[in-house]
């Protein structure tokens, strides 16, 4: 059975979204079971140096865990390049 997740790309990474998704920064993705964060990153050809802040449902996913972290149905994966503010 597949997994349906929400995939969000922000800041300069939104250029990697299809045009219709840029208005919301979000895209619904249907994934094969067992798909990992790293596989989604690869599918969208995101430059690894821009894959900086990775959140699943708002929780930080450390770099070392991105290869093995399997996405579950209903989760939201959001990714930012290096950013800051104040």
């Amino acid at each position, binding site marked *: 059975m597949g997994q349906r997740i929400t995939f*969000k790309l*922000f*800041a*300069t990474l*939104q250029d990697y979204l299809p045009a219709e998704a840029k*208005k*919301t*920064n979000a895209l619904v993705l249907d994934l094969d079971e067992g798909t990992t964060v790293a596989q989604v990153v690869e599918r969208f050809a995101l430059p690894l*140096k821009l894959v*900086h*802040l990775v*959140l699943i*449902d*708002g*929780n*930080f996913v*450390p770099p070392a865990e991105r290869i093995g972290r399997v996405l579950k149905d209903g989760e*939201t994966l*959001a990714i*930012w*390049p*290096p*950013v*800051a*503010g*104040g």
Partner: protein
Amino acid sequence: MGWTKKILRVDLSNGSIKSEPLNMQWAKDYLGQRGLATKYFVEEVDPKVDPLAPENKLIMTTGPLTGTAASTGGRYSVVTKGALTNAIACSNSGGYFGAELKFAGWDMIIFEGKSAKPVYLSIEDDKVELRDASHLWGKTVFQTEETIKKSHQDPQTRVCSIGRAGENGVKYACIVNDLHRAAGRSGVGTVMGSKNLKAVAVRGTKGAGAIKDPKAFMAATKAAKKVLADNPVTGQGLPTYGTQVLMNVINEMGALPTRNHRDVQFEDARKISGEAMKEKRPTDGKTHLVTNAACFGCTIACGRISRIDETHFSVVNKPEYWGASGGLEYEAAWALGSANGVGDLEALQYANILCNEDGFDPISFGATVAAAMELYDLGILSKEQIGIEAPFGSAQALVTLAEMTAKGEGFGKELGLGSARMCAKYGRPELSMGVKGQEFPAYDSRGIQGMGLAYSTSNRGACHLRGYTVASEVLGIPVKTDPLVTEGKADLVKAFQDATAVFDSSGTCVFTTFAWSLADLQPQLDAACEGEWTMEGLATLGERIWNMERLFNNAAGFTAKDDDLPPRLKTEPAKTGPAKGLVNGIDKMRPEYYKVRGWTPEGVPTKETLARLGL
């Protein structure tokens, strides 16, 4: 040397103006700007002084790197006892005013007393005089700057001034320079207004020379600029999206205070985000954002310059607001937007322009509107009292209330009290979302635990710029920590607070710390300033400044009870997001923090701590 070694002392009561040598022993112990001016302040002012009394003083101060070739070296600060907080206040601003003051040959200006009539201070190098400002009283910041520049016949004159908010006693009035940079928080503009001081105009032609070792300084500043340029945050992230890129980040993390902190996520966050500012509007096909902008000497250029939609209801038939103007920055966008549940980007920018135009802090103003909207929602305030329907989410209410506050009319007078006084007046003090009378900035401490401690212990009241643990807890700078736990946060907060005090005393911008550590600042200071400036010495200096401010507040009457959060953040768990079910663990973190600081359980620095810091 970095410093000009000269300060101006202006007695507004009798009109006297004196030049004094800078106290170089204090400069070595407190560096400049925040640290050094606070040293002068605590030595000269009774901690129990009424902030609006003539006996309160107001110091405009540069750092040793202000006006130099150091990146971001354009900062100046205003130190006083805050009108909003009754605590030590130090508000920091960029733009060009600080560098110009240095070029005129002055490290700082100490204002004393109160003028019998409105005046402004004119500085042209050594020619310094108080001039009549009767014709400027009642004018906005924008009008004041323009009028002074015209009358001086010198467009390169730099001006800082108060608007009508500062004249009218709005408790969170700012001092605005270069049209849209501001010493924004704690009511420093209110103090300026209480002294009948409308503006300071400065033109300097001396430059900022007299660097201890110019060759070493150029090498150190060049290396430090490369660090900023090579860092993806300061080299690309901040110039491209500015601080506003945080809107979606903090919302996703469930730490975006919404509707007076009732919620921690805002359904319209994206509509008011940095991403939205770069999108073409359907109405006119133009983007809200026009360009980024830099303050003096800055190689980051995070500032936002935007143009409002001319067809928006707030500015129809008001062409004076159609031009490009400063904003939105993240804090203003949050306070005017999410805090009130308003998802109308153009309305936020209009309210933000009013804040710049008449000099009032958008954070405290927006958060006070949020409190008023909650009082309205609870039926405690009526439409008749406010003058307009004011439900959460009403862009019309937001802009109307901003206009009222700018002009000091109607319910604007109540909003001008700030949320603490306003909520107390209507019998619900617990609905004021702040610490020590100052409203929270844009991070909910249920979702970012360390910020609860940083807010509670900030010497100028709730503030993100005194210990920005968001850098670590959210962005992983310098190392990633878990935002949802309290463990380790006492040490983290102290480290951020002490390091920030050094940057705030140097003349550089705290935003450099997304790339720089003290190790990048130290060689620049050591090359610029006479004496020996070591890493160890700077770390101690930061801690010394923090404790000096704390001692002032303790003497002013603050106690450990004031290092606390409103009950909502301690008893009402976050409803959504990663922090769902969590409250802030301030009661656990506070005792740990006092211990790490070397303070008693009552929050008083011990004799050993004071001796170690040379206090």
